[in-house]
């Protein structure tokens, strides 16, 4: 499992971002680096306290890894362009995210390129990005 994650992580560069504050996951949890994940949407949960995208990512070895990426609450990310119907099961999207530090396939949105090509937040890494709300405080 760890090898597969390394492969996925190696696809992208490690780019500096601003440390985050989060709801239950805490500021100590998230890496300051970013990863880029191209995958197939399995589920998009539009809910408080955080929206969650479940994404199936196929690594270079052909293994599929299921990632879960969190965003801020609907009220916060709506203004950035996220919607309840931004993701549908089967959509192919590219997510830029800050992964958690324990090596598991979980992370926080920095940005995304949706299936129709729409870009939200910072994709490809760098700077503060989508999914964190409008300067939203920790919840």
């Amino acid at each position: 499992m760890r090898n597969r994650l390394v492969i996925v992580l190696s696809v992208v560069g490690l780019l500096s971002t601003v440390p985050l504050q989060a709801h239950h996951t805490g500021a100590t949890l998230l890496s300051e680096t970013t990863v880029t994940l191209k995958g197939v949407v399995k589920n998009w949960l539009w809910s408080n306290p955080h929206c969650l995208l479940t994404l199936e990512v196929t690594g270079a070895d052909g293994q599929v890894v299921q990632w879960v990426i969190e965003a801020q609450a609907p009220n916060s990310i709506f203004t950035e362009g996220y919607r309840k119907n931004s993701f549908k099961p089967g959509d192919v999207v590219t997510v830029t995210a800050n992964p958690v530090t324990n090596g598991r396939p979980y992370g926080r949105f920095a940005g995304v390129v949706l299936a129709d090509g729409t870009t939200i937040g910072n994709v490809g890494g760098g700077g503060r990005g989508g999914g964190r709300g409008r300067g939203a405080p920790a919840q």
Partner: protein
Amino acid sequence: MLDRFFFVGVGLLSAALVLPANAPAQNSSGQTWPGPVPNRPPVAEKDKKPAPRRTITGMWWSRLGNQAKGVQLRPNDGSPENELPYTPYGLEQYKAHKPLEGFDAVPPAQANDPRVACEPLGFPRYNHYDLGVQIFQDENKIAMLYHYDNRWRIIWTDGRPLPKLLDGGVEIDGQFHEQRWFGYSVGRWIDDYTLEVQTVGTMPEDRVWLDNTGRPISDQARITETFKRLDADTLEWSETLEDPKIYTRPWQTMKIPMTLQDSRIDVLTRYCSPVETDQYNKIYGDSASGK
């Protein structure tokens, strides 16, 4: 109990409907459902207007965010100047707390912050978490509607005395009254622009924290707040904590300039739902934090 709650509720609603909120110097831009603007630029010196007398009515927002790193004046950053004067018991309480923020933050799977379970934050922690309030007042009381978790509080300004603090509650007119999440608050005007509020009878240390970083507070706390109108658009909100069970001396926790907002603003709701929180933890929080 129901009657008392009904009476307070009617009073609050009446205040909200009858008393107009102060309008800010500038209205929001053409939005029909405007939202708060925490970082609204300060009013230029030449445009400042004097504060109205003996009122703190209005929607007030802080530019400081949510004090995630601990109370505003003493962030929990490990620096000597921000160490708190704990009693031995207070330090023991602090060490038992496992916060998500601050110098002694732990991974989420180990945290025991009551907030994560959607427990009420209690007072004065509501002053130290994502501070934004709507304030209404009439001739007898001030009602403060806190943004986070849609909680509200009453400060009596009709001259009634502060209850006598007992073990586990307070004494009012010779009767025992239980401790409460917001305690018992009374206020008096020091001058036309300064309101001093004292609070006792808050919840015990096994139910509430002082801030996000796990600083403790006990039910023996006496909290003094000062609301000072600096001008029409600025309310300086200060707080001093005296808690001999936890701290060896009183200390000041915050002195925050609150900015007046457009009274037409429709505030985003911030309820903490146990069901939603549980769902979030099952899908993300537990695994992401190593559980």
